[in-house]
């Protein structure tokens, strides 16, 4: 197989969520001395972008998104240390968690897949994440964006509590805050002072990228 065949195979097998094939091709590629960054940017990320596009059009469904994400994650386990060694940077670091009082995570996990699929490094704190835990994790990981997820109208007020905790810790301006979840609206996101909201997984990726670019252009200006 030529490197092009490998990339095409990786793309195709990731798109259909064939985890074993994706892992096999990853090893083959590395055996041929292909650059880990090329596998990521020329095959895995484009495949997940296509998954997101198809999902948005209603041509792909939740299980297909999950297995494609899993297939990519299997390859990334092999690639991640190599990418770090070769100095390839992710497009951004995203810290994610379901707020305190809330144990729902299906939506959040879909968002994680699409973010990873777009090249973000995602650190998932799981469910029931208290404000102080978000603060400690932001301190430790220095993410570009932190995402708060809530599935209940009763747990949505934790967005505000989390943002207050960030302010108190003096880190509100150092991180972009995004919020989401079934009952959340743009108006609610605005009212609690979040920087961004998105209604679903692929919209989150677009919004996250846009917010990141905005922030970086401001820093440079």
């Amino acid at each position, binding site marked *: 197989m030529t490197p092009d065949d490998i990339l095409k195979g990786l793309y195709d097998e990731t798109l259909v969520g064939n985890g074993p094939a994706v892992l096999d091709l990853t090893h083959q590629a590395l055996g041929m001395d292909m650059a880990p960054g090329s596998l990521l940017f020329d095959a895995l990320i484009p495949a997940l972008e296509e998954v997101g596009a198809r999902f948005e059009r209603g041509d792909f469904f939740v299980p297909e998104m999950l297995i494609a994400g899993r297939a990519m994650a299997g390859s990334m386990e092999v690639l991640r240390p190599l990418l770090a060694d070769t100095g390839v940077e992710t497009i951004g670091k995203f810290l994610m968690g379901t707020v305190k009082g809330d*144990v729902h995570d*299906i939506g959040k*996990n879909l968002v994680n897949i699409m973010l990873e699929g777009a090249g973000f490094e995602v650190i998932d704190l799981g469910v*029931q994440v208290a404000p102080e835990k978000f603060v400690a994790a932001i301190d430790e990981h220095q993410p570009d964006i932190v995402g708060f997820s809530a599935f*209940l109208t009763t747990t*949505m007020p934790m967005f505000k509590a989390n943002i207050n905790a960030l302010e108190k810790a003096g880190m509100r301006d150092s991180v972009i805050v995004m919020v989401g979840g*079934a009952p959340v*609206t743009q108006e609610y996101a605005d*009212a609690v002072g979040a920087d961004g909201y998105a209604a679903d997984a692929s919209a989150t990726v677009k919004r996250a990228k846009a917010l990141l670019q905005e922030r970086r252009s401001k820093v440079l200006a």
Partner: protein
Amino acid sequence: MSAPLRHTVLRSATKEVVIGADKPFCVIGERINPTGRPVLQAALREGDLSIIAKDVAAQVAGGADVLDINMGVPLTDEAELLVTAIRMVQGLTDLPVCIDSSVVEALEAGLEAYEGRALVNSCTAEDDRLAAILPLVKKYDAAIVALPNDEDEIPMEAEKRLALTEKIVRVATEEYGIAIDDIVIDPLAMPIGADSTVGRTTLEVIRGIRERWGLNTTCGASNVSFGMPGRHALNAAWLPLAMSAGMTSAIMDARTPQIVDAVRASDLMLGNDEWGMSWIAAHRARQAAEAAASPA
């Protein structure tokens, strides 16, 4: 040995509905809910409840037995909105109501305003939620939908959900004096698209609840098909399976004939529609409606 049959009695001012394994399945119409409906949210925020009248009419026409009312609009006074909606719905229909909120103040205001015996939706097995909601259920002589999840997780193992059900039953009956017949458990029907094993787990929980306590059960039926194509067909397959395992009600969209028909056909097959009289009556009503729509 099976546990005894339990009857959960719900009432409006004038009508009684009984949930039980020897009764027709209780269809709790779900559409009176602004979650994910921006147009309805905007209207409600401006105090315009006219869309609700249409939703009520559609659920009643579709054959709902009880109506679920949820007024969880962010950034509004949910209690006030819920009271207004309950009064409005009670003026439009004599069906009993399921008061759906996770805000304790809204539940209390709703129960205070409601005429009859309501079903409260819902309470988890978390200590603070039980302590806040169960006294209201007792005070207003209502029934309660309880979910076997706690502050740590939504358990993915049937045994854990049954253990939390046991906790709910113990706390509700022993600490708050709520009749066991008035506890309706939601076994947590999760989306099958996110994990192909959750259907079997939920069926196991339903069977376990039926065998151990005989409690009535309900679930958010539409949830099972989240993220999948052919949602109506999936919901219409899920409900008969759940009914066969012992589920006695569901919060579902009564507007979809495919799903309601599956439920009513299962009522007949399970022996809860004597001589098929309800099934035959529904057939005649449909014939009459068709004849009226296309005069010869």
